[in-house]
C-alpha cells in the first residue's frame, strides 16, 4: 500500500526524511558509491522521529489520522480477518445502503455475522458509499442481519467507521432517528455475543446505532464522540476552524474513552497508523476479536444479557446527593 501519496501536516518531516533516503539509495545504486553509513543514520533518525511524532499525537492529529484516505476500511479488515464472506444486501423495506455492509463469514472456521460502516476509496466509490454516512436503510439492514445472527446463533461483529448518520431530506422522511433508536434498543437484548470495534471515526448516534455490544474496542488512532469536532466547534465556538480545540475539549481519545468505561480495550496499530500496514492492523484486530469471543461464548445467555445491560446502565457520571428533599 502506497502511503506516501497523501501527507498529513504533522507527517511532513517524516516524508522529507523518507525522500532523502530514497534519493540516497538511488545515488548509491547509480554511482556504486557506498553510502550505507548515511543510509543507516537516516533510517535511525526516521525511526526516532516516527516514535516521537506518533507517541504524542494531539486529539486533532488523531482525528486527521483516522480520516486518512488510505486508512483500512471495513471491507479491508473483513477480507483479512475472515473467509467465505457472503455479503447480504438490503433492508427489505426500501433499498440497500452501501454505507453499511454486512454478511456471514467464517472466523477461523467459526460462523459469524460481520457488519461494518464502509467509506469509499475514491470519489466514485464515495458517491456510492455516501462517504460512510448511512441512511435509515443501512441501520435497518444491520438490524435485519443481527436478528438473523441471533436466529442462527452466530456471534455478531460490528466495525464502526462513520462521520455520522447522513443528514439528508430522505433520511429524515424515512426516520433515521427511529432506525438508530430501534437498533440501540434491540441490540441490548440480542441473545448472541456482540463485539464492536471502532476502526476509524465513531460519529455520534450514527456510530452507536451499530455499537451496543458486550465488548466495545477501539483502534488506537480512532475517535468516538457525541459530535464531530467541527460540529462542536461550530456550535460552541461559533467557528468550525476551532475544531482542534473542540477535539481536545471533547476528551474522546481512546485513553479517555477507556477511563469513562465507554470502551473496554484499545487495540494498538502498526507504527505510524493502520494505513501503513493493513495486514498487521488486521492481525491485531483479529486477535482481540478472537480472545473476546472465547470469553463471551463461555457465558450463559442470561449472564451475557445481564452484563450487557449493566454495562450500559452504569454509563454516565453524575452526582447523587445524600440528603433528599
Amino acid at each position, binding site marked *: 500500500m502506497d502511503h506516501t501519496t497523501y501527507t498529513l501536516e504533522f507527517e511532513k518531516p517524516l516524508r522529507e526524511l523518507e525522500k532523502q533516503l530514497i534519493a540516497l539509495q538511488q545515488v548509491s545504486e547509480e554511482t556504486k558509491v557506498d553510502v550505507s553509513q548515511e543510509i543507516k543514520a537516516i533510517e535511525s533518525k526516521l525511526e526516532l522521529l516516527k516514535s516521537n511524532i506518533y507517541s504524542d499525537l494531539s486529539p486533532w492529529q488523531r482525528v486527521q489520522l483516522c480520516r486518512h484516505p488510505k486508512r483500512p476500511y471495513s471491507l479491508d479488515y473483513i477480507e483479512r480477518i475472515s473467509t467465505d464472506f457472503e455479503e447480504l444486501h438490503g433492508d427489505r423495506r426500501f433499498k440497500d445502503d452501501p454505507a453499511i455492509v454486512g454478511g456471514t463469514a467464517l472466523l477461523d472456521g467459526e460462523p459469524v455475522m460481520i457488519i461494518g460502516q464502509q467509506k469509499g476509496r475514491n470519489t466514485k466509490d464515495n458517491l456510492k458509499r455516501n462517504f460512510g454516512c448511512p441512511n435509515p436503510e443501512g441501520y435497518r439492514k444491520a438490524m435485519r442481519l443481527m436478528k438473523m445472527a441471533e436466529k442462527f446463533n452466530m456471534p455478531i461483529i460490528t466495525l464502526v467507521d462513520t462521520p455520522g*448518520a*447522513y*443528514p*439528508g*431530506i430522505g*433520511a*429524515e*422522511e*424515512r*426516520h*433515521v*432517528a*427511529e432506525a*438508530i*433508536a*430501534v437498533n*440501540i*434498543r*434491540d441490540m*441490548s*437484548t440480542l441473545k448472541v455475543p456482540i463485539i464492536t470495534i471502532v476502526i476509524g471515526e465513531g460519529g*455520534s*448516534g450514527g456510530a*452507536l*446505532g451499530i455499537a*451496543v455490544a458486550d465488548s466495545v474496542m477501539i483502534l488506537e488512532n480512532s475517535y*468516538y*464522540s*457525541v*459530535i464531530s469536532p467541527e*460540529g*462542536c466547534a461550530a*456550535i*460552541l*465556538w*461559533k467557528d468550525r476552524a476551532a475544531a482542534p*480545540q*473542540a477535539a481536545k*475539549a*471533547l*476528551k*474522546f481519545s481512546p485513553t479517555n*474513552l477507556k477511563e*469513562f468505561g*465507554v470502551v473496554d480495550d484499545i487495540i494498538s496499530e502498526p507504527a505510524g497508523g493502520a494505513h501503513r500496514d493493513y495486514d498487521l492492523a488486521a492481525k491485531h484486530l483479529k486477535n482481540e476479536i478472537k480472545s473476546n469471543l472465547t470469553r463471551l461464548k463461555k457465558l450463559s445467555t442470561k449472564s451475557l444479557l445481564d452484563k450487557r*445491560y449493566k454495562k*450500559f*446502565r452504569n*454509563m*454516565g*457520571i*453524575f*452526582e*447523587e*446527593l*445524600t*440528603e*433528599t*428533599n
Partner: protein
Amino acid sequence: MAIFGKPQYSTVTVKKKDIPKDVWTKCPKTNEIIYNRVLKENLMVVPNSDYHFPLDARSRISSLLDEGSFKEQDTNIRSLDPLNFTATANYKDKVKQNQKKTNETDTVISGEGTIQNMPVNIAVMDFRFMGASLGSAAGEKITRAIENGCKNKNPVIIISASGGARMQEGILSLMQLAKTSAALAKLSELKVPFISILTNPTMAGVMASYASLGDVILAEPEALIGFAGPRVIKETTQQDLPKGFQTSEFLLEHGLVDKIVHRHKMRDTVGRLLTAFGSGKAS
C-alpha cells in the same frame, strides 16, 4: 452625510423593548398581541391561532396528572463536569446560570402520579434548561423513571423537548441513548405501555433514543422534530427543504407520529390510551 451634517431626529419611536416584557407576548404565527396572564391560563397556547409556546416542565406535569397526585422522585441527582469542559464558556458556570434562571436542578423532572386515577411514572424535559440537552444526570433520571415503571408495572410517559445530547459531557452523554433505550426494552418485555410525547423541539440524540420508541408517539402541533438540524441538512445537501419539513404534521404524514394532539386535549388522549391498554383495571 457630510453635506447635511449630523442628522437630527425629532420623532419619538416606540421601540420593541419599551413594551413591558412580562405583560404582553406576540404570537409568531399571526402577530396577535396577547396578555401573558391569558396565555399562562391557557397553558401557553395562543387562544385564536392555537400556536403552542414552550411550557415549563412543572406546568406540563400539572396539566397532565390528576391534581395533587404528583410525587417527585430522584431530586438529589445533579450534573457533574466529568470532562472539565470549557469552550467560550465553561460548563460548570453554564449549569449554575441555568439553575438560577429556571429554579430547577437540571433538564428532567420525574416522578409518579395518576392520570384519571391510573398510576403512571413520568419524566418531563424542560427546554429552558440548556435547551434540555441530555446529559448523564438527565439520562439517569429518565432511566430510573422507566425502571420504576418496570418495578410497579406503571405505564411510563416521557414528554420530550431537546436539542440533543449534551456535548459538554462528551461521549458520556451519547451513552445515555443506550442506557435509556435498554431500559425501555425491559419495560416492553414486561408489556408495560410507554407513551412518548414530542414537543417543540425534539431533535438529534433524544429522537435517536427514547423519544422514537413509544408504543404510541404523540406530538404537539407544529413542533420541530427530527434527527439532523434543518440548517445542517441544507448545508450538506445544498437542497431546498420541503415545506413544513420536520414538523409534527410532516412526521404524521410520513408515518412516525401516531397522532397530533392539542395541548388541551393531551390529558384526555393519554387517559383513553392507558384505559385501552388496560391500565384502568390495574389492581
